[in-house]
């Protein structure tokens, strides 16, 4: 459907801040919106669709639309976690195709670094009753996936470390990245074991910031001056504990990726650049397998020896440094995945990491907790 109807990403903006003690969450959302609209060559009065994912304050889109003083005729704040902005871009394309809006604005922002999130569990959430009384953290839950993957497929901590190493190779060229120091697999393995088998350097950063993307219909996109990035495929999925048939080594990316690739009519081997949500190294490894970049169980071998490093390996990934090194605003990395894919397709990534002739890219997100229940959302984007 998306391919036939064709929607375009025409504006993308990542807030340069990684620490914003003097800005509100609403202000960050709004600054991101302004940046993406300026990038597109549009104004706020052109926006008639607004998408956000629960990280916006107050009455969610109602508060933000009012704060931004927008006049919208379509809004969506489906909150599937950190992958939500990828889903929102797909939903924006669908809404545009259905005639519900013409210019859709997607924003994400937060400041968990300046104002640590005091997560208040919802006592009516049915699964939390069986989780919160335990000693546990989200880190432990991802570590369960890593341990099982090691058991089933012989994946090693060193192979996981290669994912961080690749991210650090890219982050050294990003002046805004939180962690710009080049690291080796030895550095990752020597970092403290936080939740065995995951080390501290297997984890993403905690940063303030945000980003925004503008999606529009072909006629408007063609009237603008910026390079056009077409949304040619999208897919989503949700996977839980399946009533007790828990799967720790595969994710809903199997579904979201298969749908997106079928819709786009392309294969994983056609993809020149991939943004893969990287809350932890294991999140990347499992997604790469599920998206079909390698066989299930071969992810460790696939990521080793720099295969994800731009200019070195077969599949350059997260060339901004990703969540592992650069930015994980609002503890949700979905929007930055899209933004770096857009930079690559426009040829506007840092020259040191720009993929030559990057015509086809994938962006993928994992929301909430792989290992208990999570969402996946995949986009396939094409330079026109």
């Amino acid at each position: 459907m998306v391919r036939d109807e064709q929607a375009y990403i025409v504006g993308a903006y990542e807030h340069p801040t990684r620490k914003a003690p003097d800005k509100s969450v609403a202000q960050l959302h709004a600054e991101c919106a302004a940046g993406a609209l300026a990038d597109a060559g549009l104004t706020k009065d052109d926006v008639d669709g607004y998408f956000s994912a629960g990280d916006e304050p107050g009455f969610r889109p109602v508060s933000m639309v009012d704060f931004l003083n927008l006049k919208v005729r379509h809004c969506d704040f489906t909150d599937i976690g950190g992958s939500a902005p990828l889903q929102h871009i797909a939903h924006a394309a669908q809404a545009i195709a259905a005639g519900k809006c013409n210019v859709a604005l997607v924003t994400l922002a937060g400041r968990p670094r300046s104002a640590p999130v005091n997560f208040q569990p919802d006592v009516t959430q049915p699964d939390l009753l069986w989780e919160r009384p335990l000693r546990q953290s989200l880190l432990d839950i991802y570590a369960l996936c890593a341990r099982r993957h090691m058991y089933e497929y012989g994946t090693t901590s060193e192979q996981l470390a290669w994912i961080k190493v690749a991210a650090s190779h890219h982050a050294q060229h990003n002046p805004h990245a939180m962690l710009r120091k080049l690291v080796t697999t030895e550095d990752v393995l020597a970092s403290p074991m936080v939740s065995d088998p995951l080390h501290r350097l297997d984890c993403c950063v905690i940063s303030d910031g945000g980003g925004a993307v503008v999606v529009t219909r072909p006629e408007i996109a063609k009237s603008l001056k910026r390079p056009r990035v077409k949304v040619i495929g999208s897919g989503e999925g949700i996977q839980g504990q399946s009533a007790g048939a828990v799967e720790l080594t595969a994710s809903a990316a199997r579904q979201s990726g298969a749908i997106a690739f079928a819709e786009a009519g392309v294969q994983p081997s056609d993809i020149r650049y991939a943004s893969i949500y990287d809350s932890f190294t294991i999140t990347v490894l499992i997604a790469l397998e599920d998206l079909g970049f390698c066989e299930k169980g071969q992810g460790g071998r696939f990521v080793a020896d720099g295969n994800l490093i731009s200019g070195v390996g077969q599949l350059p990934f997260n060339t901004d440094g990703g969540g592992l090194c650069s930015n994980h605003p609002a503890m949700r990395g979905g929007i930055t995945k899209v933004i770096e894919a857009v930079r690559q397709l426009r040829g506007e990534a840092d020259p040191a990491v720009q993929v030559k002739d990057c015509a086809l890219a994938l962006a993928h997100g994992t929301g909430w907790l792989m290992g208990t229940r999570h969402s996946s959302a995949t986009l396939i984007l094409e330079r026109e």
Partner: protein
Amino acid sequence: MTGTDFIAHSPETKPFWDAAADSRFVLPRCQQCHRTHWYPRGICPHCLSTDIDWQESPGEGEIHSFSVNRVGNEPYVLAYVALTEGPIMLTNVVGADPATLSIGTRVKVIFNAAASEVPVPLFAVR
């Protein structure tokens, strides 16, 4: 936020907590499709029947995966335990040196309110 608050908002699972208070482990089993599930609900996640029975279980199984959190002073083990009846459940494995654990280690339920004021089902090495 306490376990008691969660239980108060989950009246369908009262039979589980009543049994647990008596140190008995029960599993929800559907009387229509005859399948067991985890985590417990008052409606079968296989067929959506509300005809749920609570079946006595020895609470035995083996470790399906585990992690050892070392952030604080005292390491703890979060695990998935595959019960003999089939379902794989999230829990803590307690009372063992984490270094002695592996996937496949046989464990048995214990009710220990140390981590919480509610009788949450934990597991110990058999």
